[in-house]
């Protein structure tokens, strides 16, 4: 648990638009340990997806660019690599599962051809071996009748099956790190539960690490060991999962937890007032200040990520 597999330091990704230049990810520092699941949680526009794309060198340029920081993977800086070096890592040692399996899969190729592609590319398998590997990968993710499904096209499969295919593809090369961006958001609850169980089981079997990007606190509670809460491009709280839910420190984290309806509980919800600021007009100082009921004069200066004991970090002046 103690080996750092991925070390992100001061990562900043900027987007330019006619309205100016905005930092979608603003000096984010995070580490991912061997064998752990780290959840990155936040609402739309908080920068969690851009963070994932930055790690894999997939930020659309233009308009986006990683401008600062470093991402160390096994001692090498991913940001310093050229495209061909990165390609050797992407899909091979670090791979990604996207939210919408239907848009991530190519509709005109059969499933096995799509899974075979990374196997041929990264592991140099010939076509026959790669197709056999694709069937094995489908069996691994619990697809019944993998031989038949391998020859199917994406539209012939249900949403849950497609997401299993995406996971099979991402895991085909035994990556050390899997980044999953809202992997179950488009799925029904019973299917979501199956996919999450599957991801946990495979992660344990491969002793890999999982970076799970989600807005769903239920998914976080079920899956993660550590959690990074993001708001408007910044990490606002970083903590182990138990204490985060038991005693959230940042007012934003507290607000989020008070906003989630819990099954069977009809007590009043306490939503956070206002809306998430756009990245082009961020408030000065603490970015949560305009929506925070605990804000005071000091909050006009942006607080750093402060130590809050036992490896906990929180970006709030209340916890200095």
């Amino acid at each position, binding site marked *: 648990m103690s080996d750092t597999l991925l070390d992100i330091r001061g990562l900043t990704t900027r987007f330019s638009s006619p309205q100016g230049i905005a930092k979608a990810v603003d000096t984010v520092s995070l580490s991912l340990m061997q064998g752990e699941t780290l959840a990155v949680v936040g609402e739309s526009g908080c920068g969690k997806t851009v963070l994932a794309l930055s790690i894999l060198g997939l930020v659309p340029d233009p308009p986006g660019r990683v401008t600062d920081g470093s991402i160390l993977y096994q001692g090498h800086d991913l940001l310093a690599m050229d495209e061909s070096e990165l390609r050797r890592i992407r899909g091979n040692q670090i791979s990604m599962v996207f939210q919408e399996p239907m848009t991530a899969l190519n509709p005109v190729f059969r499933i096995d051809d799509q899974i075979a592609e990374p196997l041929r590319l990264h592991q140099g398998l010939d076509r026959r071996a790669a197709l056999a590997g694709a069937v094995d990968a489908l069996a691994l993710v619990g697809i019944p009748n993998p031989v038949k499904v391998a020859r199917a096209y994406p539209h012939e499969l249900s949403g849950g099956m497609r997401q299993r295919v995406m996971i099979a593809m991402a895991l085909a090369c035994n990556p050390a790190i899997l980044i999953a961006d809202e992997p179950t958001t488009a799925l029904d*609850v019973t299917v979501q539960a199956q996919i999450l169980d599957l991801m946990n089981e495979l992660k344990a079997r491969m002793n890999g690490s999982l970076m799970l990007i989600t807005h769903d606190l*239920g998914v976080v509670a079920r899956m993660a060991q550590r959690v990074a809460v993001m708001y408007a491009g910044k990490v606002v709280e970083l903590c182990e999962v*138990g204490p985060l839910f038991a005693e959230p420190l940042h007012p934003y984290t507290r607000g989020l937890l008070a906003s989630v*309806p819990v099954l069977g509980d009809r007590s009043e919800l306490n*939503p956070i007032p206002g809306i998430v600021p756009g990245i082009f007009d961020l408030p000065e100082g603490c970015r949560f200040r305009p929506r925070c009921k605990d804000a005071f004069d000091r909050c006009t200066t942006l607080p750093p990520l402060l130590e809050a004991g036992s490896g906990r970090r929180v970006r709030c002046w209340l916890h200095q």
Partner: protein
Amino acid sequence: MGKHYKVTSGLLGLKTDAVRAVDGVSLTVSKGETLGLVGESGCGKSTLAKCVMGLESISSGRIVFQDRDVSDWPEKALRRKMQMIFQDPYSSLNPRQKIGSIIREGLDIHSIGTRAERRARVQELLGLVGLRPEHGTRYPHEFSGGQRQRVAVARTLALDPDLIVCDEPVSALDVSVQAQILRLLKTLQTRLDLTYVFISHDLSVVSHIADRVAVMYLGRIMEIGPGADIFATPRHPYTEALLSAVLTPDPTRRTERIPLSGELPSPMNPPSGCPFHPRCPKAFERCPQERPELRETAPGVQVACWLY
């Protein structure tokens, strides 16, 4: 005891293939209550909602709204009484129309009040849903998802309806905004004595807002009853499995998930007998042979299962 909206529809024929999107559903909605419709994609909950709204014709059965068959209502009159909120606030508002004009449209169509009265009503509605008067002169793209959903709510309220069908009204919203809209819907219900049919795939949301809940599977109702009852003691094996899959934002509470085998069967070719039997952990020999009807098992609770 107040008004009843009686729904007895069946055999919704879509095109030439007879897909029973909604099959033999009977339920009632009482005035002032919120009926939650839950189920996974393809269970027929949205089709049922469209039938209730009269947007989809039904192949058999009838839907009675305020003592009159929905098909007998003049459409314009029905629209004044029944309104709908849709899931996606990005596609349900015309991007070329100003917010004020979107909200006023119903009043214009029904020629209600003078111009000045309509304008005043729009201002009142904006206030009611927590928007500012000057928002009326802006366009939808200037608003966030949550604010757009507030506009959609204001639009449905313009004609002072009795029944509002909400089809996944908060599913596209962020958690903090979702809570704001849920709270708004609850407040408006008490203030304006509204009746809701609330459709969602999110059981936690439904448990929060609904008084009674109907659980649907492959076009049929599996279980219906008071929300408190159903969420505390689910009786149908499908409801049990569904609830066990819900994740709670609490890492210390880990419920044992009841695994469902297989995939959702195609509604084109539903299983014989109980539609749930191929995936049911408790199925026995009677289940594939005969279809169980809804039966009252406790006061107000009806279950379609041979175990009861």
